[in-house]
């Protein structure tokens, strides 16, 4: 295998590239609605029950998905138990070959896969394309990592004793994935579990079943046995049943903190018939802060903050929500940030040049509006676009400031195009405020003093700190991604340690002395 390298994103500066994407969009539009069945082994249930809508044109149904029942969950886990025995029995190289083939299948479908995200999740083109690339990266990266891991670890050897340490799959992994990275995040969790020999039951977010189906199809086409990968579209109940099921060995989850903690609680219950302790890999929310020191270059900081806070309408767990600005530059920063937000282009995800697309659903729109109103009541709104396109679940990009420290706008995850600016006396004070937060996912720092960079890097609790750049867009192998504290369990997706979450270590010590003779 050649060494891993990231799948290059499309160069959207090129007109012919844009044209090919627009053509793909038309093609996908014609095939709507997609039917997303419950897939268990060779069985495929009817795809009806859940409708996923185009957030930019809610009258359009993008996919019609089945709703997995409690018995579907049971059947899927039972089948996965069998699938695990077959799939886990193959060598790491064989499994890696299948995953690399799946990467090839996705690569061949990059344009339609991105187009589907534009329609199903209102992801603007650049973001949709990057998501497809990241999915390919996860397959390519974990396939290689798993082969490396299969060689085991070196242990100390003494005469007359042979020690080996190897890693084995856990069994059945339940993957519960969000809608905001509709292909990459489920693909990452599924690929990690499969690469290490587990069978997977995937329960995708009800807002994005179409992309999950594309993922399952690609993996099965590439040679993942039907019983080693089940697809259970459905609502939260299906996920709960899956987490509770005693046949599940590990749960890989990415989503909200509330659901994540509920999973941790449920998974901890260990009924008598369950012969193992469940493991939970949970990536949850953030309330990510960017510190802007007095020596920051605002020419760089302002565009980077805008990008971090408003791209994909702020619907990334890594998005910037708080800006902690040194008082010496807070006023010019606020003025320039407000001006930059006022010219953001709010529009349809499929239109090139759109900065802020609609949010995923009405509920999200209402939530963001509640926080924006609260920001106006408790503080000051310095930028907000009044006119929004119709139809679609659009939210006005908003910048707020002068909020009391306890304001919910500063402490709760909004997950929308809203950013709040706070003044601080110095970087130490900013770091104190960040330390007081239970979230620790991403963070940013703008400073041109190497000593300040060193100080913040040492004190910041976040999983991913970005210095003098935007704080979103982690790349597989370059920025292993994941949070600490209440933002996550510390597993770093796309990093060298991630696969350890999906295996159990086994050590064998053999006595190689026979009658005083070493028989190695």
């Amino acid at each position: 295998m050649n060494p891993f390298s990231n799948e290059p994103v499309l160069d959207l500066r090129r007109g012919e590239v844009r044209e090919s994407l627009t053509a793909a969009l038309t093609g996908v539009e014609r095939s709507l609605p997609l039917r997303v069945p419950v897939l268990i082994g060779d069985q495929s249930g009817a795809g009806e029950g859940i409708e996923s809508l185009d957030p930019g044109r809610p009258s359009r149904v993008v996919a019609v998905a089945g709703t997995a029942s409690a018995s579907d969950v049971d059947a899927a886990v039972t089948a996965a138990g069998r699938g695990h025995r077959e799939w886990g029995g193959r060598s790491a190289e064989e499994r890696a070959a299948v995953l690399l083939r799946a990467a090839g299948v996705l690569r061949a479908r990059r344009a339609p896969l991105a187009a589907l995200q534009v329609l199903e999740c209102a992801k603007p083109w650049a973001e949709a394309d990057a998501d497809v690339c990241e999915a390919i990266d996860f397959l390519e990266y974990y396939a290689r990592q798993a082969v490396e891991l299969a060689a085991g670890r070196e242990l100390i050897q003494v005469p007359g004793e042979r020690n080996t340490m190897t890693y084995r799959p856990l069994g059945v992994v339940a993957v519960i994935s969000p809608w905001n990275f509709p292909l990459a995040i489920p693909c990452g969790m599924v690929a990690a579990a499969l690469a290490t020999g587990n069978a997977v039951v995937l329960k995708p977010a009800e807002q994005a079943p179409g992309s999950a189906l594309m993922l399952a199809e690609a993996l099965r086409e590439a040679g993942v046995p039907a019983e080693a990968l089940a697809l259970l579209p459905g609502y939260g109940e299906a996920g709960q049943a899956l987490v509770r099921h005693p046949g599940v060995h590990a749960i890989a989850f990415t989503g909200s903190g509330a659901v994540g903690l509920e999973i941790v609680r449920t998974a901890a219950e260990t009924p008598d018939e369950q012969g193992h302790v469940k493991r939970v890999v949970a990536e949850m929310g953030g309330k990510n802060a960017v510190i802007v020191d007095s020596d920051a270059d605002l020419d760089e900081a302002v565009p980077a903050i805008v990008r971090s806070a408003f791209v994909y309408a702020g619907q990334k767990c890594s998005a910037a929500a708080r800006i902690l600005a040194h008082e010496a530059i807070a006023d010019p920063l606020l003025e320039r940030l407000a001006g930059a937000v006022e010219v953001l282009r709010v529009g349809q995800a499929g239109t090139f040049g759109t900065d802020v697309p609609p949010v995923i659903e009405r509920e999200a729109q209402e939530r963001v509006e509640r926080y924006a109103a609260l920001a106006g009541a408790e503080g000051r709104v310095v930028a907000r676009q009044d006119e929004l396109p119709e139809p679609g679940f659009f939210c006005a990009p908003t910048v707020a400031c002068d909020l009391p420290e306890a304001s919910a706008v500063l402490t709760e995850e909004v997950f929308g195009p809203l950013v709040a600016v706070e003044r601080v006396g110095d970087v130490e004070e900013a770091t104190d405020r960040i330390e007081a937060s239970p979230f620790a996912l991403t963070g940013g720092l703008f400073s041109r003093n190497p000593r300040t960079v060193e100080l913040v890097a040492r004190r910041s609790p976040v999983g991913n700190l970005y210095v003098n750049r935007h704080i979103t867009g982690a790349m597989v192998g370059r920025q292993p991604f994941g949070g600490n504290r209440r933002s996550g369990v510390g597993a770093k997706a796309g990093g060298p340690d991630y696969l350890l979450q999906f295996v159990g270590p086994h050590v064998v010590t053999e006595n190689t002395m026979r009658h005083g003779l070493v028989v190695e």
Partner: protein
Amino acid sequence: MVDEGELERRIREIGGALERALPSRARHPVRSLDERAMQLASEDAELKAALFRFVDVTPACRSLDDLSRHLAGFLGEVEQTPPPLRVAMRMAETGPGRAVLGAASARGVRHMAHRFIVGESPRAALGVLGGLWDGGAASSVDLLGEATVTAAEADRYAVRCSDALETLAQACAAWPERPALERDSAGPLPRANLSVKVSALTPLLRPEAPEVGRDDAARRLRPLLRRARDLGAHLHIDMESLDSLETTLELVFELLDEHELADGPSAGIVLQAYLRDSAEQLDRILAWARASGRRPALTVRLVKGAYWDHEVVEARQHGWAPPVFEDKRESDRNFEALTRRLLDARPLVRVAVASHNLRSVAHAIGYNRTRGGADEDLELQVLRGLGDDLLHALTRQDLRVRAYCPVGDMVAGMAYLVRRLLENTANDSFLSEQARGADLDRLLAAP
């Protein structure tokens, strides 16, 4: 067809004459200090990084104390610190030491900046511009500014440009006549000349949607073109990174085709020879010029391109093939190929060749003469601060030369200054080769 052997002989001759006309280095003792700093920087990558980071942060520092702390921080990252800088680091350990060090280094950076930036405002630059004119060189003013991220900033830049046109036109009117700088075979050449940047005219540059930035910038560029027309000034639209190339080309073509701008002003565009597909861009420019038939003819300024590092890094981070030639010689060869195509395309376009590379300049002059072109129909351009010696030599040879003169305050000028320093300390640059004393035959060899 051109007799290449004959042309090469000519290039040597022209290059040799230019070299002899260069002022001797010893006559500029004041310059030697930053020359030495730049020399030191070009020999040590870590030191270069420290120097650039320091220059870059200088205007953002709140006090001399703050400035010294930054300097010490940067130098702390240099593994092998030269002795004078170790003294600086020790000075940074005490309050009074920091004040002295801060004042000294601030002076150093200001001195460096003044070499490249001719004044804080167009009015303040008039003395330098008039001096250039008296010495036989024309100028183009470039207004440095902070990045444009808001509509208000774009508006302010447009107002500054409009004011600059006014100031320049008014002041130029009093300059003495210089026929060599005011006319070529196609007609009169405006004295007042302003270069503008599209990225400063709109906060809406979207590489994936060129029409968005084009339409927004057009709202501000159109009145500037009108103003230039009414004042009889030349307006040159600069080229920046590849992210804004399509926007810039479309913007210029579209506006110059508008009915009210059909007869003026004199306007120009830039072609960057380091871009792999610059030949196709020239096709587009010439096709437009042919179709439009606009007069006065579009001036095309040929440059190597100043965003090489940016383009290469951006491409590498995205896993793309770099859009620029990675071997400098390829850029140089392409520069000569484009020079020839441009000179052959006259009178469809006016040609300005902007380079500090003696070979590239001598090639343009030699090719033009070989083809029977008049010297007056080839403009040569240099950057203020970097190309001063070459400008001097070119004027002594009675060639038509224009200096590109950035104007603005230090905060605004820092990005420009850092780019120029980068250029000046790049190991493979013509200027550093020249500074290292490479022999004339090597400097003038065909790339």
